[in-house]
């Protein structure tokens, strides 16, 4: 396409530029635009000014002006970082939930606040509210702090009876009931 660059020429030139920009194409790569620039080099300066300003407008969406290659690289980098963060957060959540629900850390060793189940069974015989019924495991949970027990109840005892061997006035039971009745 050859554009006449006299008379209404500039209108024709800018109409072509607008059509290219509407299609998100670079006007500088268009043969008709190049031909018009060769015939009238004075058109180069306003075209460069327009393309530069539009490029800066496009950069506003990302906080600063960028060229096309930068935009592509930045988008891919952000996607990778977001995927890594999401994965790490999911793994951390699983580890925390698993360690809180089992009183045994991920390495299989008893936590410092755990005591032998035999001791708790003996406590139960004496009426200790933190005691538990006999079981096969060697290690059983010690009486957890109310906050942790409340969390554990929420996760594990949503549809079961109150903790075994808890007396009516026991703060653990109170905590459990508060959690239960608040639902």
């Amino acid at each position, binding site marked *: 396409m050859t554009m006449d660059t006299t008379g209404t020429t500039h209108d024709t030139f800018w109409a072509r530029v607008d059509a290219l920009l509407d299609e998100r194409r*670079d006007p500088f790569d268009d*043969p008709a635009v190049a*031909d018009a*620039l*060769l015939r009238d080099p004075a058109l*180069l300066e306003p*075209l*460069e000014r327009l393309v530069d300003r539009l490029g800066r407008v496009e950069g506003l969406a990302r906080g600063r002006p960028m060229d096309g290659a930068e935009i592509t690289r930045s988008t891919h980098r952000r996607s990778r970082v977001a995927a890594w963060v999401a994965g790490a957060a999911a793994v951390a959540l699983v580890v925390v939930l698993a360690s809180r629900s089992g009183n045994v850390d991920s390495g299989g060793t008893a936590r410092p606040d755990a005591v032998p189940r035999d001791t708790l069974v003996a406590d139960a015989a004496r009426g200790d509210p933190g005691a538990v019924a006999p079981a096969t495991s060697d290690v059983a949970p010690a009486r957890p702090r109310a906050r942790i027990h409340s969390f554990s109840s929420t996760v594990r005892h949503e549809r079961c009876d109150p903790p075994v061997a808890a007396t009516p006035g026991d703060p653990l039971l109170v905590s459990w009931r508060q959690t239960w009745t608040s639902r």
Partner: protein
Amino acid sequence: MSTPPADPPFERALLEALPRIRGYVAALAAGGPGAQDADDLLQDVAAKALRYRHAYDEGRALVPWLRRTALHVVLDARRAAARRPAGLEPDAEPVAPSEPSPAESGDELAGLLDRLDPLPREILLRFHRDGWSVARIAASHGLPEGTVKSHLHRARRRLRELPGAPTS
């Protein structure tokens, strides 16, 4: 005339920028009378850029400067060809490329956008900043697509006609 030693940072920037102007150079090479080979023209542009790199301000964008250089290379070659009797080799001394307009700051751009009418500015931002299609803009504003394009073209015309901030 001897060429001063090349500046590695400039050479690197030039090597990165040349592929980005190849389409433009190819269009220039094919356009108008006396079509040239695009790769020959790109090589001439690179040679001229190296020769006149002292005229290039590092704080400014290289691609517009190269585009201007390419245009001058083509125009010089055609002028020389028009003056030259048939059979003689070209001997014209190339003209140093002129400086592109200085880059504008974000504040200056905001000031320019403020000077657009509200609806054309809104449409311009939706299309160029947010990447919306004309059809989506038309639907969101309850306007025909032709009207959206008219506002968009008006905003672009205003944007290119507005003078930049004076250089300090």
